[in-house]
Structures are given as C-alpha cells and as structure tokens.
C-alpha cells in the first residue's frame, strides 16, 4: 500500500506511471488466474464445498480503484472484487485457505469465499446480505472524517444490490454528512438471472448520484485506466472534504452467477460482444504498444502469476481443516481473544 496522504499532495490528477501500469497488469492477471483456478479447477474437483462467485471480466474495477488507496483508507469490496483483497495485502495463500475451508484461512473455516476482513489492512468484507456494507461504510467514513487525515472509504456493490433500501439510506446519509466515501457500482448487467431492465427503470444508475446530492458518473468498467481516473477524481474530492461520489462502472459478468449456474438466460452474443472488451487484453495491448513492457516481460508476468497460484493451492491443500470443537471458540471477543484485529490507523 502507498503511504498515507498529506492532505496537500493530491491536488493534481496523476496519470499512472509505468510502474503503476505494470502493477495494474500484474493484479489483473493474478486475479484472473486465481479465480479461474477456484472456479474451473478446485470447484470441479469438489475441493471448494460452498458456492463460488467470481468476477471474470470485471477485474478492472477492483484494480483501477483499490490500487490508488493509501494506508488508512478502507475498502469494502463486493463478492466479485478479488483484486481488492490482493492489493490490500492479503496473500494468495491466505485467500485460498479461506476458499478451501482450512483452519489457517483468515476466517478459520467459519465463513467462506471472500468474506475475509482485516481492519489492520483496511478491508471490511461483505456479508451475504447484499448492500449491508453501505451503511457500514458511512460509519467508517464518519471516523475518517473526524480524523482529518484525508482518508476515504470505498464501497463496491452490484447494480442488483443498488435496489436495496440499505444502499439508499447509506447514500443519503453520506451526502448529508459529506462523508469521504466512494460508492462504486459494479454494474455487470445481470443480478443472478435478472437483467438491468428488471432491476431499475433509469437508463444509467449514475443519475442517482444527483438525487442524493453527490456527483454521479458512469465509466467503462472494462477500461482500467478510465476506472482509475474516474475514481481518482472522486478520491480527490473526498480527501479534500467535499463529500461522497457515486461511480457506475459498466461491465459484464463473463460467467454464470456462480459456478453451478450455466447462465442460459444470457444471450450468447452478449458474451461474444463483451469478450472483445476484455480488460486484461486491452491493457496488455496498450502496454505493448506503448513499449512499457515487451512480449517477454508479459510472458514472465503470466508465468509468475501461474506459479503463485500453484503455490497457494498447494499450500492450502496441505493445510489442515479445523477441528469440530473449534466452532465454539470466538463467538465473543473476550480478554485475550485469539481473533486479533487492529483497526486501521
């Protein structure tokens, strides 16, 4: 993570330099490979016993946003924002242990998927109850505002989730209190089987920003650089005390809702159309064209990413399951609680 901001240092819009561009490509690829392994290999081998939700096709949103967070910022990712966890410092080993229900995963086997939180790393995970993180982001935002260090909270949710009352209540409160929050809607066109026209009656959700009294913008969620610069503007606004923003990232879920869903309700041509907009290939092409990286370097990233995922899978597979009676531990945080978690400073 980058250093905490001095409140002055973010007045001009940075263009991502070569180093940031490389990190973006790296995290995009690492996310894609890790999720592919979970969805297409481990799940099919029966090694992941619960549900599997991945964000194939929408990796640019998590990467383009989380990559610009500072120490002290807090992210509340959605269930498809795998990259946010990596960028905030979770190791693949930890993450795979969690997916595979191992005792040394961050949830110690109590919860699954990306329901992984760690306040010292500034990550608050979703619960399955969609939208419930948005009001939580308000509380985080209040404290960040009181601390006056220019930190922000960034909360992701799907366009389906945007229908929930909790999301409305949170956006309204954040606007009234001028909280430093970026509401990011990962609009991937389908909520489970429900297409956007059955979810909301506006053309773009972005217009809702104005209804609460905050900027509302839409952006190509498959263009990591567009996500980056849009989020950057909102971050600057939030850091300098001007309040929240709402960003609608238009993207597409290149899978079923979960690993057991063949998405037969999605017209096939939509997959073909969105495949052409693949966020990873787009950035890769750009970096090759701009000579930020050469072909050999891109191949090295691919190989490295694969190796890391291999390592994490092997580690998780060698890790023990929890003991049954462990389930009784830690319901309450008593003195000497083993569930150590230090709030982000």
């Amino acid at each position, binding site marked *: 993570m980058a250093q905490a901001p001095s409140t002055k240092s973010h007045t001009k819009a940075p263009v991502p330099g070569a180093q940031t561009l490389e990190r973006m490509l790296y995290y995009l690829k690492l996310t894609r490979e890790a999720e592919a392994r979970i969805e297409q290999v481990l799940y099919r081998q029966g090694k992941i*016993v619960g549900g599997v939700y991945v964000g194939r096709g929408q990796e640019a949103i998590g990467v383009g946003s989380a990559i610009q967070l500072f120490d002290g910022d807090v992210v509340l990712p959605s269930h498809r924002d795998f990259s946010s966890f990596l960028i905030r410092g979770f190791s693949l080993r930890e993450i795979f242990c969690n997916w595979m*229900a191992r005792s040394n995963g961050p949830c110690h086997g109590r919860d*699954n998927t990306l329901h992984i939180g760690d306040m010292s790393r500034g990550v608050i995970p979703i619960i*399955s109850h969609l939208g419930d993180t948005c009001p939580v982001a308000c509380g985080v935002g209040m404290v960040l505002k009181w601390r006056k260090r220019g930190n922000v909270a960034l909360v992701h949710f799907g366009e389906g*989730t945007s229908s*929930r009352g909790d999301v409305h209540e949170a956006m309204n409160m954040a606007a009234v209190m001028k909280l430093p929050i970026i509401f990011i809607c990962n609009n991937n066109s389908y909520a489970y089987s429900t297409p956007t026209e059955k*979810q909301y009656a506006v053309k773009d959700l972005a217009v809702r920003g104005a209804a609460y009294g905050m900027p509302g913008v839409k952006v190509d969620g498959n263009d990591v650089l567009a996500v980056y610069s849009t989020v950057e503007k909102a971050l600057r606004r939030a850091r300098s005390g001007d309040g929240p923003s709402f960003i609608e990232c238009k993207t597409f879920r290149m899978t079923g809702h979960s690993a057991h869903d063949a998405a037969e309700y999605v017209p096939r041509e939509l997959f073909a159309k969105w495949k052409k907009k693949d966020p990873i290939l787009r950035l890769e092409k750009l970096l090759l064209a701009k000579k930020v990286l050469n072909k050999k370097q891109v191949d090295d990233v691919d190989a490295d990413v694969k190796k890391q995922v291999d390592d994490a899978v092997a580690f998780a597979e060698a890790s023990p399951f929890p003991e049954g009676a462990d389930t009784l531990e830690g*319901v309450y945080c008593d003195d000497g609680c083993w569930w150590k978690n230090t709030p982000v400073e």
Partner: protein
Amino acid sequence: MAQLTYLEAIRQGIWEEMERDPSVFLLGEDIGVYGGAFKVTAGMLEQFGEDRVVDTPISESAIVGAAIGAALMGMRPVAEMQFMDFISCGFDQIVNMAAKIHYRWGAAVPMVIRGPAGAGVHGGPFHSQSNEMWFVHVPGLKVVAPSTAYDAKGLIKASIRDNNPVIFYEHKYLYRRTKEDVPAQDFVVPLGKAAVRREGSDIALITYGAMVWTALEAAESLAKEGISLEVVDLRTLLPYDEQCVLSSVRKCSKVILLHEDTRIGGLAGELAAVIAEKAFEDLDGPIVRVTAPDTPVPFSPPLEEFFLPNVQKIADAARQLAAY
C-alpha cells in the same frame, strides 16, 4: 400415486393453488425466467404469465411490503426469499406491518413468505440459518416447517389458503433428499397440528424440520437397545400443537426436545416451559434439550458437522435419560 421430492411437492402444491385460485400470485427474485434459485417455481412463468409470477429487484423489504399491499387488496401473494437468511432484510415489514394489521384494524393479510432455510450443505453463516424463532416470537404470524414431501404439499396449500401471514420454512437439505408418495389430488395438512411420526413408550422426542429424519434414525437404532422413542413432528411452530406435545410427554414420562436451531431462545426452551408448567407431575426425569450450540452456523465441514445435532448426540441423550 407419484413419488415426489420435497421440492417437487412444494412446487406442485403452489401450482395447484395457482390453478384453483386466480388471486394467488408469486413474487420474488429470479423466480420467473430462471425458475428460482432452487427451481421451486420452474415452469410457472410459462404457465401463469408475468402478472402472476413477478420477478422483482433485490428488495426484500419491498417484496414483503408489496405482498402485504396486494393481500390487503384481496390477493393471496406467495413471496419467495431466495434464502430464508435474507428475510431479515424484510423484517420490519413482517413483524410490524404484516403481523399487526389484523389485530389493529381488522383487515386480513393472507400471504405466504417461503424459502429455503437450514444447514447441512456447507452454506456458511449466511446461507444456513434456522431463523424461525425470529418470527415465532411475533403474535399475528404463523410459522410452518414441514419435514416430509406429503406435508410440504399439504402445508403449503393450507398456508396459501390461510388468512394470516404465514412464514413457510423449507429445509434445503430435504429438497432433493426426501421423496415419498404424494397424492396428485387436492388435499391440505391443517396448520397447527403436529404428527406422531413413530409411536413409542419410553421417551417423547419433540422436533421439526430436517431433524425429524435424524430423530427417526436415532429411534430406529435405539429400538435395538430396547429404548422406545416416540417421535413427534411439530409441523407448525406457531401456533404449535400443545395438546399433542403434552399427551406424548404424559404417555412417555420423559422428553427430549430436539432442533437444529441454536439453543438460547430456541423452540425447545418454550416447549420445556410449557411441559414444566402443565405436565410436571407426569415427568420421570429432567427435560433434555439436543440443539445446535450458540454460535453462528460455521462453514468448514468439520465445524458444521460438530455444530449440527446428529444421531449420535440424540442417542447419547436418550441413553442417559432412559437410565435416569
């Protein structure tokens, strides 16, 4: 008679009520084109059309509120919660609006909220809860939890015909694992009536939902040891069949209360109080509870296994109680 799964029985029950009564309609997330996350409503959109199988946004509070409004307008809505865990997002509408309307101003609110609950499929803390007691504590609601395919059909039909808000708990573990002969013709299983699933003489075991099957399995193996368990399936949790519970307790003089729900504030506590109040003189031993521990439902298989009551735990409790 056709063999139906528990899931298919619920589907058939809803289907028949839709055919029988044009005021019955369905609403929920992904119930139309997709046919529901578990396919309970599969084919219904094609059969009954978009006005009677309504796909909604992800808005549990609005789903429940809309069902209440439609019920007040003379319809009989059946609202699906994709998982019963998410019923909390519609909680206020259920406990304050739906439950109190008749008591306050006399209108009927004939509606059903139904969906999958329960553990055993490694769903983790938010896809496995047995949260029925959130509603059993609310006067004005009815709470139903079938354990067999026959009952599932008969009880869903009775729930849809009932003039009160009914919360209908389907146990997801049973959906495709239980199967039995279910009549194709119209029948209902009345709300508020328990069933004795197995006659016995030593210990009355009172339970509901998927635990009925676990209890029957335990009873079978205990019978070989000479311990005779009577298994009572409550079927409806609010109002529960006090008479059936008490007569089984009086007959056996010993009692085990079993549920998959956690212990504190679970139904076993309520039943224990009633038994202590009304059948104390008939008891020959302590009232014993076999329940999940007071933790969230854990995800990892060994943890979930530890969490859930099973045959072993029931048998241990029964042996101790028999020897008392």
